[in-house]
């Protein structure tokens, strides 16, 4: 239970990330791993995700600049990216990744390009929201339990 207004605000912010479809159940799995011995575990994992996935984003961007498209390579990069995104519960990012892979399988280059632009938007939006969330979490102090979404 939140003891203070900031705690309540944090809980509302957190819930909105689920309600608006940015995060899924996997994020809760991460929260359940966080404890007193590893109080910043979730933030560490998310930071690791954004650090590692930047390389994949760059690889995909570069691959999309080369014509004709190598759909196998694009699919392979996106498969890796999707896996990482799933691991942190990045729901919208994962959905765009899935769509991108479908376009790869059907050899639809325009679809790939369009979906990738949308994916980058979702990726950036999620990053901003999570940064704001973690910043508020640091200010609010430790919470006793993670609240599961309804």
């Amino acid at each position, binding site marked *: 239970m939140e003891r203070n207004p900031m705690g309540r605000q944090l809980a509302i912010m957190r819930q909105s990330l689920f309600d608006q479809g940015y995060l899924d159940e996997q994020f809760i799995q991460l929260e*359940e791993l966080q404890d007193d011995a590893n109080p910043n575990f979730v933030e560490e*994992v998310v930071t*690791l995700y954004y650090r590692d996935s930047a390389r994949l984003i760059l690889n995909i961007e570069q691959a999309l600049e080369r014509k004709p498209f190598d759909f196998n390579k694009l699919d392979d990069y996106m498969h890796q990216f999707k896996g990482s995104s*799933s*691991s*942190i519960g990045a729901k919208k990012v994962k959905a765009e990744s899935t769509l991108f892979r479908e376009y790869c399988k059907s050899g639809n280059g325009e679809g790939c390009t369009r979906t990738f632009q949308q994916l980058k938007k979702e990726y950036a939006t999620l990053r901003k929201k999570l940064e704001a969330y973690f910043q508020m979490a640091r200010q609010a102090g430790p919470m006793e339990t993670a609240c599961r979404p309804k």
Partner: protein
Amino acid sequence: MVLGKGASSSLSMNKVDGAEEMVDNSNNFTVLVADDDPLIQKLHEMHLKKFGLKVQVVENGKKAVDLCHFGATFNLILIDKEMPVMDGAEATKELQAMGVNSLIVGVTSRDSPYEKQAFMEAGLDYCFEKPLTADKINFLLQELNKNN
């Protein structure tokens, strides 16, 4: 979805609700995690340690094989399919050929049944989709407790 040797693909298990319902690990099981993704390494290590398991992590199949070759023993080996140097399928075949006495479980992000089946045929006991979750670990602990 879990694939297991001789098991149907609709294996069901009781969903657990976090650490409160974890299976007792008083046997001190050891686990080797073989995955080249630092994010997955961190997640799996944390998940497994929460259940009281002793964890070692390597980043490719060759290191997993070498560890076992030089005498390290593990109750459970969690192995990714796609890794540099030596992938999960090849490492699994080598581990089986060596006769390692471990439960060998694939953990892959490949979601096609065909690819998972191909990985199983390398000699896995089970194959999970990533990411690892509490109920999957509970399932594996139940299997380890049965075997021990």
